[in-house]
């Protein structure tokens, strides 16, 4: 590999999650024999990789919305709760006899967009810090979701709804296909129009963007609505994959996973740029890591511990202080 190409791949932020994915793949190659095997059963492809793609779909979608929010220098802690609210709303509708799928989907997406709009208004027009504004919905949402279902878990029996989470097209699960389509749609929308540039500008320097004539408040509000919509899709995928809505536990701990995927994927937390490929790979890596931990025997409840350690390590690695230390060490080693 020539010097110039090695410089350019090192510059792409998507390289680090890719390296992580490859490493995890190697570990699994050694420790679990059937990790890479994909077999065909009843006309569907099954295997661990398919499972990762399928179970990772809600996380991938959440990360997509979170990427945009973080690109404007904001944060959305409420995505997990919004998932639960949307799941609860959809499940309750169907439990009360609604059989029209478009209606259920429209209401679900509407609820998600509404949650995003609330966040957006609080942040862009009432100028509350994003952390606190979305923390309100994060915690209040865990009150709203059980209120919708009367505190119960609700079974979902509408097959056309459950198709999203557990159905197959040409032997492939539907959920990852939805994810890929959404990523492509959002990517095309933002890169083929000026919206993406506006988002980056608003995140890079809000005051300057406003003086340049950008409606920064409207742009910020827009990304929170998109994030709410993404959370709604994630909620639909999560509840339809198991045919059940659990208002207290759906989407729990998912907000950290989404933030993690965005940060590891090379979107800076203080805003100004975004990278969808990085986010996608990082979210995939995180899911692979989780599955690998389960294989190794880590209990699901304990899984946040290594994840929290990892995100802190990654953030510390990216920090100026660490770079300076490493730089000094490197210079000493050269001397």
């Amino acid at each position, binding site marked *: 590999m020539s010097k110039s190409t090695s410089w350019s791949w090192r510059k792409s932020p998507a390289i680090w999650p890719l390296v992580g994915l490859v490493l995890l793949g190697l570990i699994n190659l050694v420790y679990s024999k059937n990790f890479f095997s994909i077999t065909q059963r009843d006309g569907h492809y099954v295997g661990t990789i398919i499972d990762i793609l399928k179970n990772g779909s809600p996380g991938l979608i959440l990360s997509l919305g979170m990427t945009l929010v973080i690109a404007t220098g904001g944060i959305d802690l409420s995505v997990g709760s919004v998932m639960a609210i949307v799941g609860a709303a959809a499940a309750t509708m169907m439990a009360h006899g609604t059989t029209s799928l478009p209606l259920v989907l429209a209401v679900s997406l509407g609820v998600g967009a509404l949650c995003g709009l609330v966040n957006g208004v609080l942040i862009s027009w009432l100028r509350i810090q994003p952390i606190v504004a979305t*923390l309100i919905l994060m915690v209040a949402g865990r009150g709203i979701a059980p209120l919708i279902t009367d505190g119960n878990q609700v079974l979902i029996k509408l097959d056309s709804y459950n198709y999203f989470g557990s159905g197959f097209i040409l032997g492939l699960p539907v959920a990852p296909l939805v994810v890929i389509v959404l990523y492509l749609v959002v990517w095309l929308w933002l890169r083929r129009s000026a919206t993406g540039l506006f988002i980056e500008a608003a995140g890079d320097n809000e005051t300057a963007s406003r003086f340049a004539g950008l409606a920064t408040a409207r742009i910020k509000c827009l990304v929170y609505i998109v994030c709410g919509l993404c959370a709604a899709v994630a909620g639909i995928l999560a509840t339809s994959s198991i045919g059940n809505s659990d208002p207290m536990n759906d989407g729990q701990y998912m907000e950290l996973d989404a*933030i993690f995927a965005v940060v590891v994927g090379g979107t800076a937390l203080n805003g100004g740029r975004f990278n969808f490929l990085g986010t996608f790979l990082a979210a995939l890596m995180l899911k692979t890591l989780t599955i690998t931990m389960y294989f190794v025997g880590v209990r699901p*409840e304990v899984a946040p*511990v290594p994840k929290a350690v990892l995100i802190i390590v990654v953030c*510390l690695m990216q920090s100026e202080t660490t770079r300076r230390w490493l730089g000094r060490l490197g210079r000493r080693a050269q001397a």
Partner: protein
Amino acid sequence: MNTLLRNRLPQLTTAVIFLLLFAAASLRYDYFFSTRNVSSLFISNGSLGVIAVGMTLVIFAGGIDLSVGAVAGFANIFVATMVQAHGWHPIPAIFVGVAIGVAFGASMGTMIHYFKQPAFLVTLAGMFFARGCAFWISESSVTVKHPFFLYLTDIKAELGGTIVHPLPAIIFFIVIGAGYLIAQFTRFGRNLLAIGGNEQSALLMGLPVGATKITAYAICGGTAALGGLVNTFITGSGNCTYGTGLELDAIATVVIGGTLLTGGRGHMFGTLLGVLIVGTIQLIIAFDGTLNAAWTRIITGMLLLVFILLQRLLLRATQKRVA
């Protein structure tokens, strides 16, 4: 309006709201205004109050700590397990539990200050870390049967004819008293407010910004752990899920008490009022009976929102007057 009154306006507003709320509830529900109820405001909210004291200090300095609920849950199950399953005496167990909280807070503060990471990110990761560790220790509830511990939980007092267990309230009063003294009468307390007002200026003034911030997070970790222990005293058992969502309650308590969320302005007395308001709302929901428990979280969230908006208005009004 003179300066003193203007500076205390948020606290005065909160005090009036609390009195109105309590009076309205007393008129609406029979037996609401009773010794048992008033004392339970302090007793059953003891852990929230203790946690809110540490949170107040962190918010004074313009920071935020999302990990307090999880740290409380960790200390809660840690001490119960150490006493019950490993035969520790409660006193060293309590000390170790609080020390872990302090160390945890200090390390988060270090990452926030020296590595310049956003406070919410570090403490959010800390929240998941502490919660995961709590699950690691024990997933089931642990009842503590050590005689000294039972003695502590069984301290009784008679108040106007009703028997109460005042230990949580006593701890709360001690901690908030200490917090008041620290915030009002020490150099550390003034440094916190100076940093919250403008960190750059504080640094240029030669204040020990790093040490002050890290100490604030350390104290907050310590009070979070202590708050979790107060709950162990109330329930007599440890539970790894304790404190879920408590971080919002603590932040809400502080903000309702008139402390500016962006830091630099506030008063420990306001936090006491905040605890009383949140406690009164919970009492009303319990008294009403028709309201779902889920409403507690929703109303706390709404209240937090209302107070943040009030602060904005108030701040804008005072700034206009200055200009």
